[in-house]
């Protein structure tokens, strides 16, 4: 019985995949959607395979997007975490700039594309920085929340046992890690969203966003879907990696 449950939970989440593929194929066969707009799974996977393996542009674009998103996340973490800690520790600083941070966090980052374009030009910089900006704000906020909500009893317990200010700070930081990871995960998702849009909209020469956009312009539907799926796999992969890292290093989260 137990075996069955393990089997069930482990593979259940993939059960939707064949159903999805069957429905997709049925829709194509029954011509419910214009076949020009929706190729079948077969041609799409052929396009995906070609794009990724035989020196097609997809592999190159994938690499470029990954590299830019990683740069953006790195910048967001390096700046966002210390700023967030600072805000979390000092209530006065937090209150004085809460409105500004909140305002920019609520501003759709895509509205800032022209501004970043103006400042940093059409190169990689504008895309990386705007992505970092979006992810950074989320990371700042979640880090600050994590630090502010560090359980008082735990910090007090450390103090009672003789922990010096530095050691108490370590307790607060460890205490904020689960919330930090929440920020990191949404930050990474957001960075990818902004990056793909930036690649489509602000004069890119490569990247997954450009790939999807170009294939659509050329009306190469299988290649376009291949680009979309690659972007999806990238987002899923980022999430999966973060999930594994979190499970390994923040094993106490949610417990």
């Amino acid at each position, binding site marked *: 019985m137990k075996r069955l449950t393990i089997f069930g939970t482990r593979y259940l989440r993939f059960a939707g995949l064949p159903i999805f593929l069957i429905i997709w194929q049925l829709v194509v066969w029954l011509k419910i959607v214009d076949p020009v707009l929706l190729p079948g799974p077969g041609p799409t996977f052929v396009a995906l395979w070609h794009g990724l393996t035989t020196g097609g542009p997809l592999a190159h674009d994938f690499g470029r997007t990954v590299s830019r998103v990683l740069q953006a996340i790195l910048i967001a973490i390096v700046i966002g975490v210390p700023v967030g800690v600072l805000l979390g520790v000092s209530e006065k600083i937090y209150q004085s700039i809460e409105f500004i941070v909140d305002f920019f966090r609520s501003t759709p980052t895509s509205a800032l594309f022209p501004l970043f374009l103006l400042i940093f030009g059409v190169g990689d910089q504008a895309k990386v920085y705007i992505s970092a900006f979006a992810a950074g704000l989320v990371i700042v906020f979640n880090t600050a929340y994590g630090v502010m909500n560090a*359980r008082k*009893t*735990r910090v*007090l*317990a*450390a103090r*009672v*046992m*003789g*922990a*010096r200010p530095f*050691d108490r700070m370590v*307790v607060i930081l*460890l205490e904020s*890690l689960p919330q930090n990871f929440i920020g990191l995960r949404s930050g990474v998702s957001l960075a990818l969203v902004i990056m793909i849009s930036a690649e489509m909209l602000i004069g890119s020469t490569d990247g997954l966003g450009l790939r999807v956009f170009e294939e659509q312009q050329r009306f190469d539907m299988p290649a376009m879907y291949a680009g979309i799926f690659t972007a999806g796999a990238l987002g899923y992969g980022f999430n999966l990696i973060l999930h594994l890292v979190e499970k390994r290093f*923040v*094993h*106490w989260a949610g*417990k």
Partner: protein
Amino acid sequence: MALPASSMNIAAPLPARSQRPHVTIQGLCKRFDGNTIYDDFNLELRRGEFISIFGPNGCGKSTLLNLIAGLLPRDGGSVLFDGATIDEIKFGYVFQNYRDALFPWLSARDNIAYPLRFMGLSKIQRKEKVDAVIERFAIRIDLNKYPYQMSGGQQQLVSILRALVVEPEILFLDEPFSALDYEMTLFMRDQMQRMFEQTRTTTLIVSHDLEEAVYLADCVLLLTRAPTQVADFTVVDVARPRSFKTLGDPEFVRVKTHCLEVFTREVRK
């Protein structure tokens, strides 16, 4: 961390009643938002005794404990431990909420070892101390687990070991068993009693359960409503080790009844 010679011998037998006090509280004052909780509160506690604090709701049982332990600032008065302030002595503190007091990122073992980090000991010395405390109290739980993998009772046991590992001069416990189920509470009371008998560390416990307060204590400190004064300081002259049979002991019943009378009188005031 200079300790008077007498405190080093923590397994000493119960000292004579005439001995000079371990804890001396003089003129203690505490106000919260204009409400006076303590005003010129005086108390002396003897070394090596187990003292339960009991009183009406809101009389400041935990406040008293936290004032003595230095977790709350005083508005006046002094608390001295054989002439030393709380910052000059080693003490242990056990919180009611073990979930928030233990560090979930450390294993139970590392939680117990945590306070030793601040005592200038080598890694080997720290390990020896942890091993010693585990062996001394014959702990049979898997201490490689993380707190969240343990039951509530086990977690609180780890908290108590963490407080005892530094060989404190005095141990404070703030309603340590009130978040546990009844079965675990009974088990923990006996663990607590066993540990006390072995170390004879001066122990202050806040309890909301009169039976528990009397069962564990050498003396029950009964408090009045705020502004709080000592209503009664009852000696529990019942032999140790105590067991469930103690609950039927005539002297135990007499003390418990007496405490209940004092308590009822104070509540009605």
